[in-house]
C-alpha cells in the first residue's frame, strides 16, 4: 500500500483501534458488530488490523525485513558482485553460513543463469572453506537430472569460496503439491522421483542428510530437483581428505524437525538417515502434517527421539484443519484415512523406526514396498514390523509369553473352525467364551496401566481381529458384536475415541437388533459408548447413555453383579461431571452399599466406588465424609493391588486434592508431588487423566503463591490438549477457572474476565441448567466488580452465586465463607490458620485490587 494515510483518517481509525485493544475477546466481538452497522468500511479494516495485532507469530514487518533488508545489509548488496565469469543480479536466499545469489554469465558467451552459493564475506574460516570444497567435490560426482548440477566454482580474491549451481525456477515439493491439489497417488509419484535421486546419490556413496520439502523443488516443467548437498556426507571419507565428519555444532544447523534420531544423538549417519527422511517426506506429503513438529525445540527433540509418530491414517482425520488438508489432496478426510490405513501406515512406521536396524535396509527396499502397496500386493513392512513388535513384546513379557502361544494357537483354530458348517451349539458357546478371553487378554495387555505403556502391538493385533470378525462372523452377529465391543473398549483405554465410536455403535446396533443376547453382553456397548462420550466431552449424551446402560445391565444381570455395579459407578461419575452432585451421591451411595454386599469390601471396584463417592463428598463440602471414604479406599487398594497400581495412586491423588482445597498445602504437596509423577510413570504413555492431575500441581503452586509457575503450567496444559479435545471439554473450564483466580491475584482484570468467560462457556455446556462450579465464576466476576468499585453489581453477582451454590453444596462448603468475604470486601478477619482454597483466592484478589 503506497497511499499516504490522511491524518484525520489515521486518528479516527486509531481511536477505534485503541478502544478495541482494551476490550476482551467477547466484548471486542460485540463492539465490532456494532461498528459494522454504521462504519462498515472501517470495521473491515479494523478486523484485519486486530487480527494482525494479536498474531505475534507471523509479523509482516519482521518477514519483510528478513526477506529484504537484513540480507541486503549484511551482504551489503550482492548485486553486481563478480564470481569468476558470473555476475550476481539478486539475492535468492540466505542462511547462517552462506547466501545464495541469482547470477548471469558476465562474459556474454551465452545467456545462462546460475544460483551462486557463497559464504558470507568475513566468515571464510578454513573449516567452512573446507566444507564448501567438500560440497563441490560431492556435486561433481553426482550426475543425475534430478539433482541440481554444479556448473562452476572457485575462490574469489577476497577469500570467499563460491559454487555456481544449476538455477531451478520452481517451488518446493509440498507447495507444488498443495497448489495443484495433487491427490495422494500423484504425490507418491513425485516422491518416487525424489527417492530415485537419493538412491543415485547413495550409489555414489553420498548421503544427503537434510532431505526436507524446502530442499526439494519442482520446476515449472514438473521435474523434481534436489538441492543443498551442503551438509552431505561422503560414506567413504578415505577418498576425500577434506571430508571431515561434521561436529555436533554443525549438526545443530540442521532443521530440527527433519533430523533423524541418530543425527540428534550425534551418532554416525548413514544412508538409513535418508530412508528416515524420505519416510518423513512421504508422511508429510500424504498427510500435510509434520509428526514431530512441536512448539519448543526441547519437545521436538524429545518427540523425534522417543515418540512413535501417530498413524498417518489417523492424522489425516484429526485436527481442525483435517478437511482443509484433505481438500488440498482432492479427497475427503475419511477417504484419505481409508487409503492410508493399514499397509501405508506400516510402511511409514518401518521407515520412521527409531533404531536404524529396524528401518528398511535401503531406499530401494522402501521403494519396492511402496510399489507393492500401489499394486495392492502384500508388503514386507507389515509382516516384519508386526513380527518385530511381537518379538519385542515377548522379550519384555516373558511370563505372558506362554499365554501368547496359547492365544495364537486358539485364534488359528478359531479361524479354521469358522469355515466348518456343522458346529454344535455347545461348541459355539465354548468358542465364544474362548475368543472373548483371547481378545480380553489382549485388551489387558494393551491397557497402558498394566504394561507400563511399553506395548503397542495389541492395537494392531486387535485390528486384525476386528477385520477377521467382520469378514468371518456374518452369521454369528452376537459374537461379532462381542469382538467389536472388546476392540472398542481397548481403543477407549488408549484414548482413540474417534476410532472406537463407529465400531461401538455398530456393536450397539447389533445388540439392539438381537433378541437373545448373552446376559453379560447386554448393555455392554451402551456402557462403552457412555464412557466414550463422557471422556470425549459430550456430557449430555453420556448421561443419557449411562442411564440406558444401567437399565440394561440391571435387567440382564441384577443390581449386584460386578458389571452392573461398574456401570452404576460410571453413571455416578457422569452425574458428578454434569454438576448433579446430590443425584450422583445418591447413585454412588447405593452402589457402594450394594458393592459391599455383592462383592465385599476387599474388591477393588468397591474401593473405587468409595473413592468416587469421596470425590463427591469433597466437592459438596462434606470433608470428613470424604476423608473416611478415601482412607478406606486407599487401604483396600493398597492391600489388593499394592502401592504402584494406578487405582491406588488415583485414590492418593484424590486425598491430596482434598488436603489442598482444605489449605493443608504442605501435606497436599507431599502427596501430589509424589503421586502425580508416579501415576505418569505407571501409565507411561500420555493419558488424559494425567492432564487432570497435572492441574493439581499447578494448584499447589498457586496456593504456595508461585503464581507465575502456576499460570505457566496451566497455559501449557491448555495448549497441550487444545487439539485433542473439543473446546467444550470440562478440562478447559477447569483451567480457565484456575487461571482467572491467578489473574485476579495479579490484579489483571482483563485477563481474569477473559478466563471467566471461557470457563462460563464450558460449564454452561457441561450443564446448561447451572453447574455448581458456575458459582465460582460468579464469585470471580463479583471480585472484578469490587475492583471497579461497583457495589451494586457485587451484591447482585454474589446473591446469584449463593443461590446457585446452595442448590448442590453443603452449607459447610468453604465457598460460602469465600462468598461472605467477597461481600464484606475485607479479609482482615481471616484467621492465621491455613485458609481453604476459595478463601485464599478471595483474599488474594482483594489484596491485589487494594494495592
Amino acid at each position, binding site marked *: 500500500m503506497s497511499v499516504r494515510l490522511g491524518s484525520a483518517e489515521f486518528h479516527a481509525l486509531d481511536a477505534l*483501534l485503541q478502544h478495541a485493544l482494551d476490550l476482551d475477546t467477547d466484548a471486542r466481538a460485540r463492539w465490532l458488530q456494532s461498528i459494522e452497522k454504521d462504519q462498515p468500511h472501517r470495521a473491515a479494516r479494523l478486523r484485519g488490523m486486530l487480527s494482525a495485532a494479536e498474531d505475534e507469530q507471523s509479523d509482516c514487518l519482521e518477514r519483510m525485513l528478513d526477506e529484504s533488508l537484513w540480507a541486503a545489509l549484511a551482504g551489503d548488496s550482492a548485486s553486481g558482485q563478480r564470481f569468476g565469469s558470473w555476475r550476481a543480479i539478486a539475492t535468492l536466499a540466505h542462511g547462517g553460513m552462506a547466501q545464495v545469489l541469482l547470477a548471469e554469465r558476465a562474459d556474454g558467451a551465452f545467456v545462462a543463469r546460475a544460483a551462486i552459493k557463497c559464504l558470507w564475506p568475513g566468515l571464510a574460516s578454513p573449516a567452512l572453506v573446507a566444507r564448501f570444497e567438500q560440497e563441490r567435490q560431492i556435486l561433481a560426482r553426482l550426475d543425475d537430472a534430478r539433482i541440481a548440477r554444479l556448473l562452476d566454482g572457485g575462490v574469489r580474491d577476497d577469500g570467499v569460496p563460491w559454487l555456481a549451481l544449476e538455477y531451478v525456477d520452481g517451488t518446493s515439493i509440498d507447495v507444488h503439491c498443495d497448489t495443484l491439489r495433487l491427490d495422494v497417488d500423484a504425490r507418491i509419484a513425485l516422491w518416487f522421483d525424489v527417492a530415485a535421486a537419493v538412491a543415485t546419490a547413495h550409489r555414489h556413496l553420498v548421503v544427503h542428510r537434510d532431505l526436507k520439502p524446502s530442499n526439494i523443488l519442482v520446476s515449472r516443467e514438473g521435474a523434481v530437483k534436489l538441492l543443498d548437498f551442503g551438509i552431505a556426507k561422503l560414506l567413504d571419507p578415505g577418498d576425500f581428505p577434506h571430508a571431515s565428519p561434521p561436529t555436533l555444532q554443525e549438526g545443530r544447523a540442521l532443521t530440527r524437525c527433519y533430523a533423524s534420531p541418530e543425527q540428534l544423538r550425534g551418532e554416525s549417519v548413514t544412508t538409513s538417515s535418508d530412508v528416515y527422511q524420505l519416510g518423513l517426506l512421504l508422511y508429510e506429503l500424504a498427510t500435510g502434517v509434520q509428526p514431530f513438529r512441536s512448539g519448543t525445540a526441547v519437545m521436538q527433540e524429545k518427540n523425534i527421539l522417543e515418540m512413535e509418530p501417530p498413524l498417518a491414517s489417523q492424522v489425516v482425520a484429526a485436527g481442525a484443519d483435517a478437511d482443509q488438508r484433505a481438500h488440498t489432496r482432492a479427497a475427503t478426510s475419511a477417504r484419505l484415512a481409508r487409503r492410508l490405513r493399514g499397509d501405508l501406515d506400516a510402511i511409514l512406521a518401518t521407515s520412521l523406526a527409531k533404531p536404524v536396524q529396524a528401518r528398511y535396509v535401503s531406499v530401494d527396499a522402501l521403494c519396492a514396498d511402496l510399489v507393492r502397496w500401489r499394486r495392492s500386493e502384500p508388503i514386507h513392512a507389515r509382516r516384519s514390523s508386526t513380527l518385530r513388535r511381537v518379538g519385542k513384546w515377548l522379550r519384555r513379557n516373558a511370563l505372558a509369553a506362554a499365554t501368547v502361544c496359547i492365544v495364537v494357537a486358539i485364534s488359528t483354530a478359531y479361524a479354521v473352525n469358522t469355515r466348518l458348517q456343522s458346529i454344535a451349539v455347545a461348541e459355539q458357546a465354548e468358542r465364544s467364551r474362548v475368543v472373548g478371553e483371547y481378545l480380553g487378554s489382549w485388551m489387558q495387555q494393551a491397557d497402558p496401566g498394566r504394561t507400563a505403556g511399553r506395548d503397542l502391538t495389541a492395537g494392531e493385533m486387535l485390528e486384525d481381529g476386528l477385520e477377521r470378525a467382520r469378514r468371518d462372523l456374518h452369521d454369528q452377529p452376537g459374537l461379532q458384536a462381542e469382538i467389536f465391543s472388546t476392540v472398542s473398549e481397548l481403543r477407549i483405554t488408549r484414548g482413540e475415541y474417534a476410532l472406537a465410536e463407529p465400531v461401538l455403535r455398530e456393536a450397539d446396533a447389533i445388540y439392539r437388533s438381537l433378541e437373545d443376547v448373552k446376559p453379560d453382553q447386554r448393555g455392554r456397548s451402551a456402557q462403552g459408548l457412555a464412557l466414550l462420550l463422557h471422556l470425549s466431552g459430550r456430557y449430555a449424551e453420556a448421561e443419557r447413555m449411562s442411564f440406558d446402560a444401567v437399565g440394561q445391565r440391571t435387567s440382564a444381570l441384577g443390581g449386584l453383579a460386578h458389571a452392573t455395579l461398574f456401570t452404576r459407578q460410571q453413571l455416578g461419575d457422569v452425574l458428578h461431571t454434569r454438576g448433579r452432585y446430590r443425584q450422583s451421591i445418591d447413585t454412588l451411595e447405593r452402589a457402594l452399599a450394594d458393592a459391599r454386599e455383592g462383592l465385599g469390601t476387599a474388591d477393588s471396584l468397591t474401593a473405587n466406588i468409595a473413592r468416587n463417592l469421596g470425590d463427591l463428598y469433597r466437592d459438596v463440602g462434606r470433608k470428613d465424609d470424604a476423608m473416611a471414604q478415601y482412607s478406606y479406599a486407599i487401604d483396600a487398594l493398597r492391600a489388593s493391588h499394592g502401592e504402584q497400581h494406578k487405582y491406588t495412586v488415583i485414590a492418593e491423588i484424590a486425598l491430596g486434592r482434598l488436603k489442598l482445597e482444605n489449605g493443608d498445602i504442605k501435606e497436599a504437596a507431599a502427596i501430589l508431588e509424589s503421586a502425580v509423577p508416579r501415576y505418569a510413570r505407571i501409565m507411561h504413555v500420555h493419558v488424559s487423566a494425567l492432564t487432570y492431575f497435572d492441574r493439581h500441581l499447578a494448584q499447589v503452586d498457586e496456593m504456595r503463591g508461585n503464581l507465575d509457575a502456576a499460570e505457566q503450567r496451566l497455559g501449557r496444559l491448555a495448549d497441550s490438549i487444545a487439539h485433542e479435545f473439543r473446546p467444550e471439554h470440562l478440562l478447559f473450564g477447569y483451567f480457565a477457572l484456575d487461571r482467572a483466580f491467578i489473574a485476579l491475584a495479579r490484579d489483571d482484570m482483563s485477563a481474569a474476565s477473559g478466563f471467566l468467560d471461557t470457563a462460563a462457556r464450558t460449564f454452561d455446556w457441561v450443564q446448561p441448567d447451572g453447574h455448581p462450579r458456575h458459582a465460582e465464576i460468579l464469585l470471580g466476576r463479583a471480585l472484578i466488580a469490587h475492583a471497579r468499585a461497583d457495589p451494586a453489581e457485587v451484591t447482585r453477582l454474589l446473591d446469584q452465586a449463593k443461590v446457585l451454590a446452595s442448590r448442590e453444596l453443603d452449607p459447610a462448603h468453604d465457598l460460602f465463607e469465600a462468598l461472605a468475604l467477597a461481600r464484606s470486601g475485607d479479609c482482615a478477619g481471616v484467621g492465621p490458620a491455613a485458609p481453604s482454597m476459595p478463601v485464599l483466592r478471595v483474599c488474594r484478589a482483594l489484596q491485589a485490587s487494594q494495592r
Partner: protein
Amino acid sequence: MNDEVGDLAERLAREGYGEAGSLRELLPLVYSDLKRIAHFQLLRHVRGSTMSTTVLVHETWARLAGASARAPIEREHFVSLCARVMRQVVIDHARASSAEKRGGGAVHVELQDAAATAEAPAHSLVVLAEALESLQDADPRLARLVEQHWLIGLEVEELAEIHHFSLRTAQRELKRARAWLAELLLP
C-alpha cells in the same frame, strides 16, 4: 575514531538528539555496528536467539559513551538515534534498489532455515520505507517504537524502560504498532 566520537557526542549534546542535523553524516560512525546488528537479526531464527541484538546496541553505546567524557551520551537517546539511523538505512536501500528494480518469479533456493522467498525484495523495501514515513507523519512516537523494536531489536521490557511505560502499556503499544504495520504494509 575517538575524536570523531567525541565530536559526535558534543554535537548531539549541542543540537539535541531529536534533530541531529544530517543523519547521513552520522552514518559512517555507527554503520559497521548497524551492519552487525543486521547480521544478528538475520541469524536469530537460524540458531535460536542466544545473542540479543540489544547487546550489540548497548556495546556500541558503551563504546561511544566511554569515548566521550566531554559530553556523556544518554543510553536511551543513543538507542533512539540508532533506530533512526536504521530507518535511514531502510530508506536508502529502498531508493537504491528501486532504481535498479528487477523482476523474477518466486524462487526458492533455501539454505538451512532462513525462510527466503525473494519475491521482489526491492519492492517490499519501498513499501516499507513509505510505511515508516507515513507512520512518522501520523504518530512519531509510535514510529519510534516500531524502529526500536523491529529495526534495532529491542524487546518489550526494554521498550517499557526507555519510554517509561508499564510493561502492559508497552505490550499494548506493540499490538497497536503491529496493527498499523499490517494496515500499511499489506495490500
